């Protein structure tokens, strides 16, 4: 009898349990297998990037040390698959003979930092500008809109290549940062400067249409301030857009950073980023294809997992998705 009573009370408790929106989103996310796996993969690589010094120490490796004993007389790695061995899990770099895993870990740290700072800054700036111009409209909207059109139509790649060197020198002269640090600052500032209009335009159009919706008028009828309407009524409806955009732009900037250092504009050797490793690998691709394939695969896995993670978060946050 006692057992039955306990079971009954449990059932009763279960039916009245109330979940907050956050808990519901988290529950939905956990059910999405692709999302959970890509989250694990993305976290694995992010931790790998930021714990690079610890991991390399545990493995007894270094990103600056060379391992001449792994190279043959032609400065090519000894053994198959780019010189993979127990002591060098991803093989070694031809030529200098540095450990590839250590290079990629340290390299992804720079790439991740650039991508995260750039994405968050350009989305934050775009959100701010887009939501205010979309909600308040008027002359400011028209002027900001034309300015963002100008930026969007500007050949930004050439401008970055042309101005990177003088601006880096200026940053160094101002003692903001030195060397590769200065190059990263310049790159981030350029990316943000050319990055916000795309998102601002998207947010503006959404804020523009939402401000005419009845729920905004309902808030106005209650006497809500513009600040409250923007933060409480409009912003929650724009988060999914921001997350999707983040999931696109984060790997996008990761790749862009690789492209620019590949082209010789961004971070320079002896530091290592995806771009530097890949541009180096291109010269060896006939003799040591593993050296090209492994960093490419590493980059592709990160980009793909971040994209899939962004999709999963968006689905989890959308209350219109099937409840359950």
């Amino acid at each position, binding site marked *: 009898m006692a057992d039955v009573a306990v079971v009954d009370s449990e059932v009763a408790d279960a039916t009245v349990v109330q979940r907050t929106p956050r808990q519901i989103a988290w529950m939905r996310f956990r059910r999405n297998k692709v999302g959970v796996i890509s989250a694990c993969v993305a976290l694995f690589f992010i931790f790998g990037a930021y714990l690079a010094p610890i991991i390399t120490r545990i493995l007894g490796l270094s990103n600056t040390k060379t391992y001449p004993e792994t190279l043959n007389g032609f400065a090519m790695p000894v053994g198959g698959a780019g010189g993979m061995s127990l002591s060098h899990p991803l093989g070694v770099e031809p030529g200098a003979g540095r450990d590839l895993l250590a290079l990629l870990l340290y390299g992804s740290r720079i790439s991740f930092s650039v991508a995260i700072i750039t994405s968050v800054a350009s989305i934050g700036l775009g959100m701010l500008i887009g939501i205010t111009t979309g909600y308040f409209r008027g002359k400011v909207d028209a002027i900001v809109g034309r300015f963002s059109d100008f930026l969007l139509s500007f050949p930004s790649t050439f401008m970055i290549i042309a101005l990177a060197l003088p601006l880096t020198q200026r940053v160094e002269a101002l003692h903001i940062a030195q060397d590769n640090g200065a190059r990263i600052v310049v790159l981030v500032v350029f990316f943000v400067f050319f990055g916000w209009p795309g998102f601002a335009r998207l947010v503006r159009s959404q804020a523009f249409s939402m401000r005419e919706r*009845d729920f905004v008028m309902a808030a106005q009828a209650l006497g809500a301030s513009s600040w409250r309407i923007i933060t409480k009524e409009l912003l929650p409806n724009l988060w999914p857009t921001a997350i999707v955009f983040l999931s696109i732009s984060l790997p996008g900037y990761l790749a862009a950073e690789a492209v620019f250092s590949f082209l010789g504009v961004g971070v320079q050797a002896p530091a290592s980023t995806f771009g530097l490793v890949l541009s180096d690998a291109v010269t060896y691709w006939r003799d040591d294809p593993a050296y090209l394939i492994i960093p490419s695969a590493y980059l592709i896995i990160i980009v793909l997992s971040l994209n899939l993670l962004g999709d999963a978060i968006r689905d989890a946050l959308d209350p219109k998705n099937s409840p359950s």
Partner: protein
Amino acid sequence: MTEPILKLEGLTKYFDTTAGGIFSRKKGTVKAVDGIDLEIMPGQTVGLVGESGCGKTTVGRTVLKLYEPTSGKIVFEGRDITNLSRHDMKPLRAQMQMIFQDPFASLNPRQTVGSLIGATFDIQGITPPGGVKVEVERLMERVGLNPEHVNRYPHEFSGGQRQRIGVARAIALKPKLIVADEPVSALDVSIQAQVVNLLDDLQNEFGMSYLFVAHDLSVVQHISDRVIVMYLGKIMEDADKHDLFSSPRHPYTKALLSAVPVPDPIKGRQRERIILQGDLPSPMNPPSGCVFNTRCWKVQEKCRTDVPALIQIAPNHRLACHFPEPA
């Protein structure tokens, strides 16, 4: 005689239509509301009817100062609120609320029912006795919703339930005036009756006044004490419900009433049906004289030149027509 809760004197709302971006220029003026005088007594329900585009929604929104009136006066409880700033208006917003037409657009899809209703207290800075949470659940129960659904999102409710959420939000602060902007026209007929009856019950309980904007005459007949007929931004006729429905004096009112479906097919076939020709003229370029002259079957030369004044023809009966129907 008690003081009216709301009084409009010559209220107008014009919208400028513009073209171009930075160097925009004025293209024309839409006279959405063109000189409305009306009074609403405490506890009274005034139905505002007219076809689409006649400006009845604009009247409702201008009354709540969601639109700035172009000219005229809005007097709420004896106080002129026409030129009050947004800041000065805020405390008064607790006294006047709105129920919206589309229950799918009037509720923020990203807020739970609890935060939608609770926001009213938050914005006005009022803490109800017993706390916001208790009050929200009490309100949900009052409008016929399950208080356990407080954490649900609007899309998890049916249209009728959503409109009940809108009603709960509007009555949360116990306002004295509620502008109901076609509150049932987006709902199924069976649900319409429930929501109309809910509004009726709430009025008996709290004694607020309604400005009930609608185009469905049978709903208006059910809920209103007085009915105002609008056409192209102007009042055509304003009368006690029984007077208006039994003996309409304005040709437009008569035409409107003749369009109401009659449940009895034999009676339906017998009655006279007035079909108006043409469309509603553009409010950007309204006809001269009586605005209804382009579609009126009794039109005379005078109607095209002289604007008929809205005059008192009987106690509680105002009319704007040169050639009214016989009583």
